[in-house]
């Protein structure tokens, strides 16, 4: 039996776990194609029009899997950290899919809710075992094995500063981000944004590729340890209840405080609820207390690559100028 996994949203975070888990239970895992024009178009057609781009793209990926698999795995991800949520659209994702896409194959939608403690992950595993009708024991063995692989993947991102795609396919050589780190003369940019936006080559219009090509070192919130994020969020008066928002703001505050970056790029999708507030907080702080350039890139299905490139290039020019010529230029020309 084939189980389909849409190549969107938390694919960039949990794919190693999902793949190994289902494979050790004896299923074959099918991925949807990498995001392309066709998928985005399909997603826009199917999805409710007020949703954000990544949710629309997810709809497209699910539609892409129809006919290729016997079942599709769409977990209801309520919370992945105690006392935190992801976003209401994640909470209702399986409902949205069921309500908007006709002729779906069997949908496996177990609930992943760690709001009341990390050990609640076992409920999730139990639910999957019920969905698939496999024994609990087998499921737990698979869980333990996959957890190890997931941890390996996570630590690879942090230690080697890799991006998920490279870590997933073990492209040790291609992960050029690695080699840049050694060259401390390069510009260092903090790349903020949700993993499913910045790592999706199509959605982010090759932002990472473009940075690599220009020999820019970049850090994302997946490449830092939890400790750093917590250190950064200490400055908040109220604990943030969005996991991704907390990661973003924690990373930003940490690096801003230590003046370790030359610039910040914040990538957000149009209509993203949490980011509209998180972005504002970061931008306000950067403007008020630190003298660091900040680029806010807003993505939606109408974004055009040319304008995107122009803005990115202009921003990088500013960074370059600040680094090398700041003291030499007379303001009078």
């Amino acid at each position: 039996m084939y189980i389909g996994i849409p190549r969107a949203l938390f694919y960039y975070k949990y794919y190693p776990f999902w793949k190994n888990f289902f494979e050790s239970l004896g299923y074959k895992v099918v991925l949807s194609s990498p995001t392309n024009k066709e998928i985005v178009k399909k997603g826009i057609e199917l999805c409710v029009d007020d949703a954000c781009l990544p949710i629309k793209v997810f709809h497209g990926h699910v539609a892409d899997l129809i006919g290729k698999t016997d079942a599709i795995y769409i977990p209801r991800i309520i919370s992945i950290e105690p006392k935190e949520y992801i976003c209401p659209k994640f909470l209702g994702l399986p409902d949205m899919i069921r309500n908007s896409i006709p002729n779906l194959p069997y949908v496996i939608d177990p609930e992943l809710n760690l709001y009341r403690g990390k050990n609640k992950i076992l409920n999730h595993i139990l639910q999957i075992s019920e969905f698939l009708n496999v024994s609990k024991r087998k499921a737990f063995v698979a869980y333990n094995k996959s957890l190890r692989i997931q941890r390996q993947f996570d630590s690879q991102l942090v230690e080697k500063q890799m991006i998920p795609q490279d870590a997933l396919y073990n492209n040790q050589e291609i992960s050029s981000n690695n080699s840049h780190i050694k060259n401390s003369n390069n510009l260092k940019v903090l790349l903020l944004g949700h993993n499913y936006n910045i790592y999706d080559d199509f959605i982010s219009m090759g932002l990472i590729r473009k940075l690599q090509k220009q020999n820019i070192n970049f850090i994302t919130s997946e490449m830092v340890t939890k400790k750093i994020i917590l250190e950064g969020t200490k400055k908040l008066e109220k604990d943030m209840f969005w996991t991704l928002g907390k990661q973003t703001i924690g990373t930003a505050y940490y690096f801003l405080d230590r003046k370790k970056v030359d610039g910040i790029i914040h990538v957000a999708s149009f209509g993203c609820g949490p980011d509209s507030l998180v972005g504002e907080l970061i931008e306000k702080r950067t403007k008020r207390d630190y003298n660091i350039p900040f680029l806010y890139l807003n993505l939606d299905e109408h974004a055009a690559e040319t304008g995107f490139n122009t803005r990115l290039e202009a921003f990088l020019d500013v960074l370059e100028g600040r680094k090398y010529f700041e003291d030499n230029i007379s303001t009078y020309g």
Partner: protein
Amino acid sequence: MKITFPHMGNIYIPLKTLFENLGFEVIPPPPCTKRTLELGVANSPEFACLPLKINVGNFIEAFEKGADTIVMAGGIGPCRFGYYGQVQREILKDLGFNFNMIILEPPQGHFFELLKKINFIINKKNNSIKDIIKAATLAWKKAVLLDKLDVEICKLRAIEITKGQSDGLYNYNLQRIIEINDEKEMSAYEVEMLKSFSSIPVNNDKKPIKIGIVGEIYTILEPFVNLDIEKQLGELGTEVYRNIYITDWVRENLLPSFLKPKDYKKMLDLSRPFINCFIGGHGQESIAQIVNFSKMGFDGVIHLLPFTCMPEIVAKSAIPKVSQKYSIPVMTIVLDEHSAETGFRTRLEAFIDMIYHNKEGKDFARVCTWN
């Protein structure tokens, strides 16, 4: 210490009573106007939802009148409202205002913090527990009375013979409720108010169609944001009910779970299988209430949400199926700072025409479109 708080429909009346009876000076923001909106939009993040922007406008206008302390509610997510206070504080700080902000977070592990904050507010004036209870009861009674007024006027508006009469009555009663500041007088006034409704001549033969309003609470309760939808629908000759009134909101959100009304949980279950779990805000409730309204024999439902409201977007995705299964027409209206009254009115009229047409079809079994 001059207290202010954001506007949300008539909620300022009980809140003002509460704080005044606790001995504080209260400066409610002036009613929401275009200026409020413009101030809010100019100073808020572009993609924040509309309530945040209007709140910011409210605060700025209240500061202009001399307020210096904001009392604001908090939350634990995943809806953005829980983080409003934090962002608004930063915005107002950047604008150079000097103020104090008290954010009341719902008890969730931090129960002591909430008590401490409430204590902080109350202790400033040395109130005894008796005073506090008295102030709270009076405020609650006002809220109950306001809700009754809203419900009755919405019924009257649809069938009044002289248009505009019920609105006059509404404003008169509203003023009275604001002025009264004594529990006994309040009870006496309640009888008087209920009597006053029958003074308006109505057309009893008219059987108005019934419309339910569901959606995000702020857009339902604040008439400035929803372009006075209740009044507009009333003028078009329909009876309007909301799914949420001020007192319901207090009962369902501020009381601990064992005190919550029992029907509430049952009602939420109606949202299955379209929405199967809590999705933040009032998303699940919107769907459940559409089903509920359909079971109660309503002719149509209007679903309101501010632009980019996350929970209601999920709810919106379920509406076509709900509407089909329970055969009730539902219209979604997204509200933001660009909403214009004319287009809005046209949509309402079209929706109501469609419902009338539907009804005719049902009555005559077959209607030719060309005769």
